[in-house]
């Protein structure tokens, strides 16, 4: 990777992170619809950083846009008291810019040039700036220049008088002791200097200012062209050079030395003038702000004696000179700053590397069991070998846990994204909505998080669009006008449970059933359809149609896509709803898609894996009586509870499987509140398995594919199929 690639990577990573933070902050403040001084500083800084790095990368559009937003916040820093509707515009502008920056940065990530059209946003930002500047003028009694603050020259600094004389005296005793300032002093030399700065060094007027500052104490009187260095006169300095006239008792050599120290000095002309008459501008002394300002800084003793006063003075001068809001110095003041300080303890790693590591660990887990369960070695019963393999097993377990934990990230970022969607949509559809986030700290595998974002977004949109009623309807129904959507994440065993609940109008069960029957999605009589079943119709492809949007509160729109996505992750979706009270979508997603603890069971020559978390107990079949109903469906009763029996050999068509009920083993499994007894030949032992997606050719040749969640390579190299207990127990099927 060359320098440029790594810089692009840092550029993308850092700026995206800043934009996320920014977006989050704005959304957190949407209720107040204003920002605190610190938050304004924060936005300013983010824009400033984006501007700086974009400029370095040569992304002109992004530089220009971030600069104009920065200017808006520079104005706000001076005057944060703006009317609410202006705040609304500011929020809109920044959020739109955040979106724009994100798409542009995504282009950078793809290796493209971010050449999106900034025109509209830039114009919006300039317009806002003008309006805020106008406000600034009318609100602020002090005559502050309303132009972009970034370009505002500092007001002449206040504490001019006191420190000037003593300092100048101490640093340049010779000229100061000379009397009669206005007259030509005896022994004085007059020098003319013309300084040209290197092309493109920028801020030439400030560089000229710095030269005068550097000469501080070396002259008795001074004059220069341009005369006022506190305003932007870059053009003049570039065109004509910076001309200096100095009255001093010091030798030319000393002046030359100081001038030659100037950074970015292209050329220096220095000559002595015969007298002051050749100087076209009046020589001045003591009027430069230089001495006044630098005094406290150049006197360390004063500082140590009275640090507090000094700090106050520094803050004051900063406020006066740069119009910078005094910044709090306490550590506690700024959480973002505190976070910034902490960041050095974190290491950001490319996800690709962690993926690779995860793959390797998966291979190690497999190989470990290949070695430790090697039948030939196992037959030797070597105690030391078994001891070592046990230790190896422990270590691979630990290694796996660690790698898994690296991949775990809080779901917070995904949840926060939803806040933005609610913010945008609530304005679009005119339904004020509160999004309550619970369990944001819940950690989920990075891969899962990425795949979760789309389904969640879809469900939230559905809830906003169709679930929640209009404020009018809500008022009539006696509900609070502001709708509520709750987004909650929680760990449940090896799954993460995600709930999207709204307090809207709920699903119309009867209408859905009618529609399902009409569409031929079910053949059951209406009375035999449970609520759960009825609601699950909306996740079937083909249920969602345009008229469903209006007739059945449109919950069908895209829900089949959501359901498919969730199932692809090995998860499940269930729906509960009460008419008039709201709808709750519950997702169960495995925390990780990679490794599970499984029980290996044998059926004939076939090996299957049942996830340990789904197993409640296992027992010999002969302990219980088998009940067969007239349809041929088999059940057994355990402790008074009736369970369906699923014979795996029948289900998967395994010919050699044990069919005598008394000789087999029962495994009672449970998922999502549904349970069943799986009938197998024997249990072969517990082990960790790495889930591999089912190769397409296997998937095609196996019947009942949907009852399998994947496959795994076992220690001896054979392939086991992993049972999807959820679909096994849920489905109403006849084997």
């Amino acid at each position: 990777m060359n320098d440029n690639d790594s810089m692009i990577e840092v550029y993308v990573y850092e700026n995206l992170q800043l934009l996320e933070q920014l977006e989050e902050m704005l959304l957190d403040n949407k209720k107040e619809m204003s920002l605190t001084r610190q938050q304004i500083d924060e936005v300013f800084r983010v824009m400033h950083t984006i501007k700086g790095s974009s400029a370095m990368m040569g992304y002109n559009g992004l530089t220009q846009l971030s600069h104009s937003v920065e200017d808006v916040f520079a104005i706000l820093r001076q005057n944060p008291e703006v009317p609410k509707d202006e705040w609304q515009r500011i929020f809109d502008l920044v959020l739109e810019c955040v979106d724009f920056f994100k798409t542009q940065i995504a282009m950078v990530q793809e290796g493209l040039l971010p050449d999106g059209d900034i025109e509209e946003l830039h114009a919006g930002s300039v317009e806002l700036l003008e309006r805020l500047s106008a406000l600034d003028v009318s609100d602020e009694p002090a005559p502050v220049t309303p132009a972009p603050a970034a370009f505002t020259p500092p007001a002449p600094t206040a504490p001019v008088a006191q420190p000037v004389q003593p300092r100048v005296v101490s640093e340049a005793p010779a000229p100061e002791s000379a009397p009669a300032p206005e007259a030509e002093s005896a022994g004085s030399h007059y020098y003319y200097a013309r300084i040209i700065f290197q092309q493109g060094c920028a801020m030439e007027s400030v560089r000229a200012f710095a030269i005068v500052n550097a000469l501080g104490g070396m002259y008795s009187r001074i004059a220069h062209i341009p005369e006022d260095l506190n305003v932007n006169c870059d053009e003049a300095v570039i065109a004509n050079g910076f001309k200096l006239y100095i009255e001093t008792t010091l030798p030319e050599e000393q002046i030359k030395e100081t001038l030659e120290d100037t950074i970015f000095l292209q050329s220096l002309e220095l000559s002595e003038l015969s007298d002051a008459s050749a100087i076209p501008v009046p020589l001045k002394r003591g009027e430069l702000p230089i001495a006044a300002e630098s005094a406290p800084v150049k006197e360390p003793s004063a500082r140590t004696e009275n640090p507090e006063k000094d700090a106050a003075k520094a803050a004051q001068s900063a406020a006066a000179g740069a119009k910078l809001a005094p910044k709090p110095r306490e550590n506690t003041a700024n959480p973002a700053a505190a976070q910034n300080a902490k960041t050095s303890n974190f290491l950001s790693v490319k996800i690709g590397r962690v993926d690779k590591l995860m793959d390797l660990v998966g291979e190690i887990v497999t190989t470990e069991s290949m070695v430790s369960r090697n039948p030939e070695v196992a037959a030797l019963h070597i105690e030391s070998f078994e001891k070592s393999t046990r230790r190896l097993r422990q270590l691979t377990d630990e290694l796996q846990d660690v790698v898994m934990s690296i991949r775990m990230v809080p779901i917070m970022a995904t949840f926060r994204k939803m806040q933005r969607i609610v913010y945008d949509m609530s304005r679009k559809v005119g339904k004020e909505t509160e999004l309550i986030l619970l369990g944001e700290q819940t950690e989920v595998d990075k891969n899962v998080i990425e795949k979760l974002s789309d389904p969640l977004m879809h469900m939230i949109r559905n809830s906003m669009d169709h679930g929640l009623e209009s404020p009018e309807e809500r008022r009539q129904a006696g509900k609070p006008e502001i709708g509520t959507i709750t987004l909650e994440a929680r760990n449940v065993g090896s799954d993460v449970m995600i709930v999207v609940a709204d307090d809207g109008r709920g699903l119309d069960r009867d209408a859905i059933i009618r529609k399902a029957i009409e569409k031929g999605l079910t053949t059951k009589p209406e009375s035999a359809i449970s609520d759960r079943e009825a609601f699950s119709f909306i996740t079937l492809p083909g249920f969602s149609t345009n008229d469903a949007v209006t007739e059945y509160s449109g919950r069908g729109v895209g829900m089949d896509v959501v359901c498919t996505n969730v199932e692809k992750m090995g998860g499940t979706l269930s729906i509960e709803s009460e008419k008039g009270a709201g709808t709750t979508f519950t997702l169960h997603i495995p925390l990780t898609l990679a490794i599970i603890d499984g029980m290996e069971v044998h059926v004939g020559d076939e090996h299957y894996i049942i996830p340990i978390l789904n197993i409640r107990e296992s027992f010999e079949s002969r302990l219980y009586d088998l009940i067969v109903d007239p349809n041929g469906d088999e059940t057994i009763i355990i402790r008074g509870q009736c369970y369906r029996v699923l014979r795996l050999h029948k289900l998967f068509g395994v010919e050699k499987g044990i069919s005598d009920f008394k000789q087999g083993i029962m495994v009672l499994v449970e998922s999502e509140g549904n349970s069943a007894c799986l009938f197998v030949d024997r249990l072969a032992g517990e082990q960790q398995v790495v889930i591999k997606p089912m190769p397409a050719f296997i998937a095609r040749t196996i019947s009942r594919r949907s009852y399998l969640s994947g496959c795994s390579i076992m220690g001896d190299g054979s392939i086991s199929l992993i049972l999807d207990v959820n679909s096994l127990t849920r489905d109403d099927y006849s084997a």
Partner: protein
Amino acid sequence: MKRVLIVDDAAFMRISIRNILTKNGYEIAGEAGNGAEAVQKYTELHPDIVTMDITMPEVNGIDALKQIRGMNKDAVIIMVSALGQEAMVRDAVLAGAKGFVVKPFKEETIIAALSKL
């Protein structure tokens, strides 16, 4: 070999400067992400040169400059500023900054500035 402390709240800028300086024979004494950290690292590391960003959280570059110059009046600090920060750069000059570069800068620009120090 001159030892440089790089102060900037943006990792991008720190890395840019670091890459340029190491390529040109400077040693990176350390890096800091805000003014407070800069002051602390300055006292710990005693670098020959500090490159100081201006806009930073908590303690900005100007305040950090003042604090460092308060401890050591010979501290060599060069400001890394951006267009639009003229006023603050003037402040920095008054507070004793030895010079300043303006973002975006080229490799030769910052090296030219540092070689003068």
